């Protein structure tokens, strides 16, 4: 044992004035450690001589009262004979066995659930989710019924313009999520409405069906509408996934072609 270890051991002795046998040989033979032991022993002697003031008799109770009142952050409860012991079974039940019971209940549930899943026979009962109504189909049916009553070319042109708008809107709404083939089909339907519907109405319209002013107003309105549809599709084509672009571009091209038909 070196001098440093001996001196540390002396410091932690309960009473350094009494050097144990195992250190004594070293301390006797080593001047530095002997002087260290003497100083520590002297210090210990001085400490025992320090006067200690007597504690006030009621200080402890005053401190407890101060903590308990008036802000009962720590509430002091007077112990009642048998009270603590009386609360023990409840605490015991509320903590340890409750955890145990909860664990057991969970284990039983898992076992029963597993057994039910593994042993049940027959086909799995299907949970029939309600099929939502399709607002797009409903809109198409409304347009269809309106066309069934449209005897004037102006009405038919406006309704066909609405039909083109509905298809374009549906394509734009689904451009980010729908299958490209479904989108292309919608774009093909839009093109059909423009060329087989609107354009044909213009070509077959009798000269006397509209006055010049009526014709100008109607055509200008349709050209504007188709121009807006083209712009909307072109704008969205820059924001959607690449596979959705062709459908929107096709709608934009068809709309521009239709727009030309109605421009003066």
């Amino acid at each position, binding site marked *: 044992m070196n001098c440093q270890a001996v001196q540390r051991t002396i410091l932690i002795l309960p009473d350094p004035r009494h050097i144990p046998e195992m250190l004594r040989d070293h301390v006797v033979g080593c001047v530095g450690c002997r002087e260290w032991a003497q100083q520590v022993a002297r210090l210990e002697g001085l400490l025992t001589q320090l006067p200690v003031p007597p504690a006030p008799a009621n200080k402890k109770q005053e401190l407890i009262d101060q903590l308990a009142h008036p802000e009962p952050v720590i509430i002091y409860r007077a112990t009642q004979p048998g009270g603590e012991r009386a609360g023990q079974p409840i605490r015991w039940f509320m903590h340890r066995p409750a955890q145990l019971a909860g664990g057991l209940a969970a284990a039983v549930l898992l076992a029963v659930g597993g057994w039910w899943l593994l042993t049940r026979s027959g086909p799995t009962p299907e949970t029939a989710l309600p099929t939502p109504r399709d607002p797009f189909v*409903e809109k198409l049916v409304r347009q*269809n019924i309106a*066309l*069934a*009553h449209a005897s004037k070319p102006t009405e038919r042109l406006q309704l066909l313009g609405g039909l083109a708008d509905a298809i374009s809107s549906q394509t734009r709404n*689904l451009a*980010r999520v729908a299958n490209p083939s*479904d989108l292309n089909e*919608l774009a093909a339907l839009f093109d059909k409405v423009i060329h087989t*519907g609107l354009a044909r109405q213009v070509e077959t319209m009798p000269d006397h069906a509209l006055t010049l002013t009526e014709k100008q107003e109607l055509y200008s309105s349709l050209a504007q509408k188709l121009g807006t549809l083209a712009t909307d599709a072109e704008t969205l084509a820059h924001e959607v996934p690449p596979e959705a672009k062709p459908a929107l571009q096709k709608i934009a091209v068809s709309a521009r072609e239709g727009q030309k038909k109605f421009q003066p």
Partner: protein
Amino acid sequence: MRRVVFTLVTGVVVCAWAGAQGPTPLSPADQVKLLKMNRILIGNLIDDSLALANAGNETERAVACRKTARSLANALKAAAHDEDADRVTELAELMARVMRDGLMPNLDAATRLVQPNSPQAAQLAEVKKSALGDLDDIAAAVPLDSKLAGNPKVQESLAGLAQIKSRIVP
């Protein structure tokens, strides 16, 4: 007392607000699913609408309306085969609307206008016969002893179609 009145008034206001919200918008997944499911029907409805736009008179419009009804009837039969009560109800209601608000007025107008024994009269008779055939097809697609026929919504929508059938005079 004031608290009760306040609670009732608040409840009424909340109910009125909730009622004014309209149907919940479809999720993108539902919209995609419906687009796939109704792909053929959508194409047919647009073709039928174009036929209506290009129809020159009431008889031709009646022919086009009957075609729309047929498109819906085909989709309805497929839904009945799948035992999809919601879809059967939806399509039966749409078909009833087309027949009641589109086909019937044009049939009535054409019947008044066409000369008996004319080619148009024969065409009209054919339209009526086909429309009655469509309704019979629907009845056959939902047999009375089927689970589908026991659904109250389906029953109600099919009753609407049966009522229209009684108004079509061959």
